[in-house]
């Protein structure tokens, strides 16, 4: 182990984390026109700016929702509390919803964590693995007698989101350039996110029965169980409702296999 190098790198990182110039200044050569303090400050500014940009890029509308002052406070707090252990800055903000949920003054506004979580899922949808979706024709070729025991596999980009606040509606307002209005708690709403056939990230609201169905798919339930589940909402028309949902998921590229 190159001990002197290791000690110097640790001192450099400690300086970046604390901003205390005395940690690194004794190692820095006096050269060029700028002072040692200026040289150090360039790195410290870049350190914070890089993470600020990552948060801003990954959570573009959260920044608008918070406003400049609260956004800067969030950046300051998050950068200190969460040194990056990731290769990609894309992943750096993965703890942001938890940070907002657990740290004042943000924790007094539960919609913030929910808003950040929704934006995190949009990133996950964008970055998800590719997979070939099946078509309606593929399902028509399956023998009808096998249907009750069949199971669906969803596209890796499919995500579910349940909201107790008007977080998604506020996100949509900001996206449209409209003021989002006040934060309100509301009956739980359900959202389906996925990457469409044209590779664009999409989302839409869904009802409680569809939300329960997709949870059942993720759980590995077969078609018979899913139809049974739907009887809570659709009584005699459960199979028809199931077929309608299935058609919708397949035509939107959300299903990659029926097994």
């Amino acid at each position, binding site marked *: *182990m*190159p001990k*002197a*190098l*290791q000690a*110097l*790198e*640790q001192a*450099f*990182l400690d300086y*970046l*984390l604390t901003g205390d110039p005395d940690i690194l200044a004794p*190692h*820095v*050569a*006096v*050269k*060029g*026109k*700028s002072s*040692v303090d*200026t*040289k*150090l400050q*360039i*790195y410290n500014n*870049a*350190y914070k700016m*890089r*993470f600020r940009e*990552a948060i801003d890029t990954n959570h573009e509308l959260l920044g608008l929702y918070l406003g400049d002052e609260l956004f800067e406070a969030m950046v300051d707090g998050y950068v200190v509390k969460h*040194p*990056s*252990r*990731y*290769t*990609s*800055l894309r992943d*750096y903000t993965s703890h942001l919803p938890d940070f907002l949920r657990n740290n004042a003054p943000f924790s007094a506004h539960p919609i913030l964590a929910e808003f950040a979580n929704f934006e995190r899922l949009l990133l996950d949808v*964008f*970055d*998800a*693995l*590719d*997979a070939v979706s099946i078509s309606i024709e593929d399902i028509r070729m399956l023998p009808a007698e096998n249907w009750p025991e069949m199971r669906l596999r969803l596209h*890796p*980009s499919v995500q579910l989101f349940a909201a107790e606040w008007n977080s998604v509606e506020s996100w949509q307002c900001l996206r449209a350039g409209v003021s989002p209005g006040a934060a309100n708690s509301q009956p739980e709403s359900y959202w389906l996110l996925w*990457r469409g056939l044209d*590779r664009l990230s999409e989302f839409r609201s869904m009802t409680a029965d569809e939300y329960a169905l997709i949870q059942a798919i993720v759980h590995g339930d077969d078609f018979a169980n899913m139809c049974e589940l739907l009887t809570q909402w659709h009584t005699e028309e459960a199979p028809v409702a199931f077929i309608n949902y299935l058609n919708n998921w397949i035509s939107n590229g959300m299903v990659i296999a029926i097994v």
Partner: protein
Amino acid sequence: MHDSHFLGFGLGLRTPHYDYVIQERPLVDWFEILTENYFVGGGKPKYYLHQVREHYPIVMHGVSLSIGSTDPLNTDYLKQLRALVAEIEPEWISDHLCWTTVNHINSHDLLPLPYTQEALAHVVSRVQQVQDFLGRQILLENPSSYLDFNHADMSEVEFLSEVANQADCFILLDINNIYVSSRNHGFCAEQYLEAIDPKRVRQFHLAGHSDYGDYVIDTHDHNVCDDVWSLYRKALMHFGAVSTMIERDGNIPVFEELHAELAQARQLFLQTLELDEVPKPENLVLHA
């Protein structure tokens, strides 16, 4: 005049230009991609990359190898890198002579090394390990820096040359970085160029920076300035025909504007080397 690895004149492939490049197929000899941007399972970045790869040679440029770190080499990173290399079949791959991570905390910055014998032995050993793992030689880029250390045994250019010789890797010479660091540390940029063995240099970077008078920051958000063009000309005189590209990461203009700046590099190349036309790249394998 030039070796078989000369690719001509390239640009960095950036997200705002994906559609333009695919639809218009501009006359660019090759594109450089930012490696880590394609460490994703799928979606638009990969889709566009494969579209571009069908029509252009690609080189891969990384920022996360952290070759100078005292942490163990990141094998997950290297596996992802190797998989992307197999998928894209780049002409070559590069990263920076720097460190980014220590004690598993990532600064996400290209931080300077102390140019000591101890650091040299460490970096040489790691470059050899990386090249063994990947089964190919890599290029290392001279970093831009804003400080250096007071217990150095050698200059940056001596350190870079020794790494290349001892580890048998190549050099990506960033002309703008030489200029930026020469201003920040007060060394002679021309002497830096002349100290490098031309056989080791496989690519040039050109870029813009922000000039604050007493110091200069490598921001990649401006056009290439006159002083860097002048240094590029001197580099051509010393190294001959080297594949050249322009990096732009901030304040990204429309593609045509970058393309025009690249034409400026091509023109300077022809004038400096007294050629009528750019030598044809050799040994290129494009996907059908």
